[in-house]
């Protein structure tokens, strides 16, 4: 479904100096699989997630990404969304003045339009959104507020999950969705992700902690450090990391 080949990318810092963040990432995710990426701070996990979603400010210097066999990186962010790619942001943006419900409806109908489906009418939409907001544990009042404005960290993350449930994307990236969440919220994320899991849908879960993976059982766990995937394994790798930290992998001789 998604294949990343030798992806290298730079960013420019405030002093306009180039810094290489991704040093050749290789990753292949098949339909229905859940992959987790773990790794220390600054290893390039969030950069990878943002490049996949199409955020500006990164320069891809080598390699490429294919989604369903098509070049992903030449697409605009909205075209990626239309093809079913979704990133639950680590730090969701506050958008004052844009009503959350209006935003959700516009987003859903934009994606439907690009899929050549008719827009959902107001009453069908309302039923759907009231149903889904219950699942993520937010009150209906959040629908009438501006997108993420004044939401707590946990409420923002719940709002991300709500968007995921509404848009039903096919390739979902969770960028540290678990950070800053309490146990109840963590279980909610796990429940919502599991409810979407099927043969066609894939996930890439970026996390620091093994904890989330108790709720979302990954098929493959990757360890990323210094802009590269150093080691891949099954879910036992996550437990090993929790116990020993990252140091031992970084010290292992590279193949």
């Amino acid at each position, binding site marked *: 479904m998604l294949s990343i080949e030798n992806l290298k990318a730079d960013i420019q810092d405030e002093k306009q100096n180039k810094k290489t963040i991704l040093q050749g990432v290789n990753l292949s995710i098949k339909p229905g699989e859940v992959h987790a990426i773990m790794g220390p701070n600054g290893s390039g996990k969030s950069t990878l997630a943002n490049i996949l979603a199409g955020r500006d400010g990164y320069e891809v210097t080598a390699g490429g990404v294919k989604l369903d066999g098509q070049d992903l990186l030449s697409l*605009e962010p909205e075209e990626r969304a239309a093809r079913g790619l*979704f990133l639950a942001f680590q730090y969701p943006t506050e958008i004052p*003045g844009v009503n959350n419900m209006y935003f959700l409806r516009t987003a*859903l109908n934009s994606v439907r339009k690009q899929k050549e489906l008719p827009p959902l009418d107001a009453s069908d939409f309302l039923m759907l959104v009231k149903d889904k907001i219950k699942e993520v544990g937010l009150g209906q009042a959040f629908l009438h507020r501006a997108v993420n404005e004044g939401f707590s960290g946990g409420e923002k993350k719940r709002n991300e999950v709500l968007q995921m449930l509404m848009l039903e994307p096919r390739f979902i990236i969770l960028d540290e969705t678990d950070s800053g969440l309490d146990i109840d919220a963590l279980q909610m994320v796990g429940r919502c992700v599991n409810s979407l899991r099927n043969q066609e849908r894939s996930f890439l879960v970026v996390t620091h902690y093994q904890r989330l993976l108790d709720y979302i059982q990954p098929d493959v766990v990757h360890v990323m450090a210094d802009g590269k995937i150093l080691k891949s394994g099954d879910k036992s790798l996550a437990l090993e990391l929790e116990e020993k930290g990252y140091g031992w992998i970084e010290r292992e001789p590279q193949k």
Partner: protein
Amino acid sequence: MNTMLNMPGWIQMPSQVQGSDLPAWLEIEKQKSWEIFQKAGLPTRKHERWKYADISHLEQAQYEAPGKAQPPVSAADINSFRLPGESHLLVLVNGVYFPELSDIKRLPEGAVICSLRNAGKQYEPLLKQYMQNKNTKQHPFLNLNHALFNDGLFLYFPENCQLSAPIHLLSLTVCDKPYVLYPRHCIYLADNSRVSILEEHHSLDDQCCLVNAAADISAGCGSVLDIYKLHQQNENTNHFSNTNLIQLKDSHVSITQFTLSGRFVRDDLNVNLQFSGAYCQTAGFYKLSGENQYVDHHIDIEHAASMTKSEMMYKGIVDNKSRAVFNGRLHVHPGAQKITAQQANHNLLLSNQAEVYSKPELEIYADDVKCRHGATTGQLDQDALFYLRSRGLAYPEAVNLLLQAFSAEVIQLIKNEDIAAHIQARIGENI
């Protein structure tokens, strides 16, 4: 003879008093205003209050006063502008009130709406009691209006008169030649009256025109007045507006202006909070996108008494080569304690040739005062744009949503739902 005087040829001496149907005292005021005006002429950019206002295009132009002929405006033209809900409709064509196009049948008893000339005949004591003829060198266009006005509106609301439906003041220009218009309006609210007004300005053609309007407003004790102005004139219209507002004890007045088009729009608002409990909220939203468009808000608020409150909130989107000016001045008089005042001006620049000049001024001569001010000028939030696009919104759709969101804070100040929907729709079309 001062050869440096800025006095274009289209500014004509007022005609002689004889045959006038205005009260004699008002004719004398007109004459006085002319004398003050002609000493200084039109302002130049050397004047501090006109530093950014380039009016050189008015100096070369030729304008004339419209003739007496009935302008070609039909009831059908008017209908397309009507609000969906109930309203009291007043139609002005080229600055003159047309009762036959208007609809004020449901006005409560005691409330008066008529032309200024009529008021001079029928309600002279009221007019004399309220009318402000405050001419200062600072406001040359106001002096010019006071010297040359031909007619305008007179609105009077007696004590405890509470209008449930808004007044819809539709001001249209129809010009077969470049016209100059000097409408003068008077709006007087007696104690505890309550009125809201939507004042709309439209052109029915593309002809260039100059409107130099003035309004006297007086808000009695405990009265509530909400004024919403919508400017949607053609790209050749120059609109100058001077409003003098006097507020008595515990009166609440809001003035919110939306400027969506026009060549040159200058709005001077002079507010005098004369007695305690007076509260004035001024706000504006402007969206400029023309080659050479200019909008300028000058607001002067006098806190002349203790326990008075004021707010200014102006927001604008400035694109292409257009320019916006905000100059908000607060003046807290000596001894005027327990004052709360806020000033804000926020601008979005959509092109690197657009310009914004923002100048907050605070003059405070009392010590127990809470005043805040803030001004920002920036670009569209790229993170918000990316967030919306990553959820499937196409780039233009995402930009529109953010621009509309920027205007939302000002639209939210509109208390009447019909008016809010009407203005929101106009902004939506414009963005």
